[in-house]
């Protein structure tokens, strides 16, 4: 079927059954209606800048190059296949790609096989499905581009051989919104400023979002789970990170949020839960410019709520909830965190292991919260001793440390105004809360106990009565036998 359907400027040729090669005629080469690949390239070649091309359903093969401002809209999700190489390359500004299925790029990391390669600004890549791709959408010098509502599924490869689902290189003022990334390496921003990253979802990637040397980036409302690291910020500044859900990030690094040598950040109302480390702070803030605020975050049920390197200073951690982290705040190595504030303007954080009370009802405990646990102190120095966590020795050591002040370590930090109720948290946690055991489970276990006790005590009368009954029967049988 030769379904060439083009909208060229205002001329509509949609669903023409035959003889619709007219659009290609002027170009001087055969449009080959039999071959959809030739047809598509022909349509692109013949279109004028600013045209919209409705690509009919079907399967096409890459690489397809677009070198003028065009809008390509897939009708009923046509498939663009890459095979062993790339799929789509955009070399002109103002190109829109929407509604396609882009399947299977090559897997060469050397050539960086990519589904959509953008080398010009203001591209719009939206509502596509990218599947089995090495690199997904690769923006280079593509300022003002929009990547929205795409699904990007990586290749089933070892993490070291995967590519980035989304990569921005020197692409300022881009918007990345509503995408779903799975099984890729990173979604990474290199040297890009003014980028907005909003409401994306990421699963089983290396880094959910990774910033390198970028600035003025807003990361909000994303749902990044089961990656190695949720958000990893390196050498960047001017960051607003809010209302993200960073959960179950337990790969080799295993941070919900990592900050390395970055500046000027406000991290608020995020939920970090069930990560190996909720927040990891290394050399941040790097200089002293701008705020370094952590506020209103919920850090719950992580192995470690917040890890800071000993040299870190100048962070303001206040109004957060630290709930049931195996270790609430850790120092990686020797040292204290006294150069960071854990309370600001007489408001500290909520700590689930705080033992104080609130006498005057202002929501602030009357005694300070000190983090000075001997076992934590030991494991901060010698992490392999974490093997003994949750054992009786762990408890015994803490008990001794409380009872014998001589062996009690110096406090890692002090929160002078700990909150006695957790502040309301940002991102939704309903999906993460565990189920309560059913009454049935409790009853069943109790019934097992009762059954065994019954077996022990009821059996003897039963057995003896059975024996009695048996011997009675025997006697009857004997008598019957004797009489006959």
């Amino acid at each position, binding site marked *: 079927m030769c379904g060439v359907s083009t909208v060229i400027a205002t001329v509509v040729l949609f669903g023409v059954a035959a003889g619709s090669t007219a659009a290609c005629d002027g170009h001087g080469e055969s449009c080959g209606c039999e071959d959809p690949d030739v047809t598509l390239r022909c349509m692109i070649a013949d279109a004028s800048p600013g045209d919209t091309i409705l690509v009919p359903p079907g399967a096409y093969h890459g690489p397809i190059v677009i070198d003028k401002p065009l809008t390509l809209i897939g009708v009923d999700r046509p498939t663009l296949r890459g095979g062993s190489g790339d799929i789509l390359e955009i070399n002109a500004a103002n190109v829109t790609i929407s509604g396609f299925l882009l399947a299977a790029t090559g897997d060469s990391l050397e050539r960086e096989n990519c589904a959509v390669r953008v080398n010009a600004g203001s591209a719009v890549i939206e509502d596509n499905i990218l599947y089995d791709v090495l690199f997904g959408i690769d923006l280079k010098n593509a300022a003002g581009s929009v990547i929205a509502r795409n699904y990007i599924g990586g290749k089933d490869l070892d993490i070291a051989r995967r590519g980035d689902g989304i990569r921005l290189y020197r692409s300022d003022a881009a918007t990345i919104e509503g995408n779903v990334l799975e099984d890729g390496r990173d979604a990474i921003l290199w040297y890009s400023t003014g980028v907005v990253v909003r409401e994306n979802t990421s699963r089983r990637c290396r880094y959910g979002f990774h910033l390198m040397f970028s600035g003025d980036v807003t990361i909000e409302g994303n749902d990044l789970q089961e990656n190695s690291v949720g958000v990893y910020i390196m050498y960047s500044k001017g960051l607003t990170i809010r209302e993200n859900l960073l959960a179950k990030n337990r790969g080799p690094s295993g941070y919900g949020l990592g900050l390395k040598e970055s500046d000027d950040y406000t991290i608020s109302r995020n939920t970090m839960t069930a990560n190996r480390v909720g927040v990891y702070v290394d050399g941040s803030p790097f200089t002293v410019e701008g705020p370094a605020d952590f506020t209103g975050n919920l850090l719950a049920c992580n192995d470690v709520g917040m890890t800071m390197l000993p040299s870190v200073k100048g962070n303001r951690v206040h109004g957060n909830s630290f709930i*049931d982290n195996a270790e609430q705040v850790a120092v990686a190595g020797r040292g204290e965190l006294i150069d960071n504030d854990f309370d600001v303007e007489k408001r500290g954080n909520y700590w689930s292991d705080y033992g104080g009370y609130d006498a005057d009802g202002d929501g602030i405990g009357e005694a300070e919260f000190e983090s000075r646990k001997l076992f934590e102190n030991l494991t901060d120095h010698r992490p*392999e001793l*974490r093997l003994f966590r949750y054992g009786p020795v762990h408890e015994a050591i803490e008990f001794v440390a409380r009872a014998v002040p001589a062996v009690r370590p110096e406090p890692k930090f002090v929160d002078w105004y700990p909150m006695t109720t*957790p502040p309301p948290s940002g991102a939704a946690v309903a999906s993460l809360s565990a*189920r309560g*055991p059913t*009454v049935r*489970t409790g009853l069943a276990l109790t019934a097992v106990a009762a059954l065994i006790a019954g077996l*022990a005590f009821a059996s003897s009368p039963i057995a003896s009565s059975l024996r009695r009954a048996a011997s009675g029967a025997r006697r009857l049988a004997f008598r019957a036998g004797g009489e006959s």
Partner: protein
Amino acid sequence: MSTICNTRGLGVTMARASACRPPSVASTFLRLTIADLRQALLARWFVLYTAAFVTLGLGISYVSAMAAGSTGLDGFGRTSAGLINLVILIVPLMALTAGASAIAPQRERGSLAYLLVQPVSRGEVLGARFVGLSLAMVASIALGFGLSGLILSLKGGAADPGSLVRLASLAVVLAMAMVAPGIAISVMTRRSSVASGIAVFVWLALVFGSDLGLMAAAGAMHLRAQELFYAGLASPLQVFKMWALCGTDATLDILGPAGLYATDTFGARLPWLFSGAMAAWIVLPLAAAWVIFTRRSQ
């Protein structure tokens, strides 16, 4: 009996035959087991330990349910960690002392001699002791976890029903791995007070000694993470803890580098490794007990 069996008439012999045979091996074993179970459940120490186990379990569940109420979140946090600690402390003590009182007191009183002249083999006596005591432990653990589960469900606390059952089952495995050495102790000692003393000493050594010793060794000898992990496998308490932790998300990385090593090296085979270690703690002491018990004059 013999007169009954020598009656004529083939029509009724089938029904009589079963009644006339000496009790079968299975039913003897069952009867012995139930008698041992009854004896264990009635032992003063056992009742006290069970009461302590249940009370503490209820306390832990109640407190953690209250605390989790504020957010509805409870990771591995309070409930399970508390219950694991409780199991590690009390279950081995219960199982070891119960095992230690399996043979020695009866030998001291002389009732063992009476039992052994009955038509039962020594292996049966030993096996019945083990099964009976294990069943008693199952009852105690099921009661503790069952009531804890009820408290949790009534207070709306957070703990997966599956994980509660799983933890209870692992506690039973640990109990069996402690009943067996207890029986071995009981067989080896002549006096019951000595047997109980050794049992408590072994408990103390396992609960505190092995962990503290390993920690000290790790510091002094600079044990690497993997050496620490393998050393930990030697202690059934440590194995129980790792097994219980490994269940919640199938990784052990909460235990730091040693746990990471275990996860990376063994992965899905970890439960097999743990069950192997536990099986060794059950089979080897029982075998030793059997050898000694059958060789001895009494």
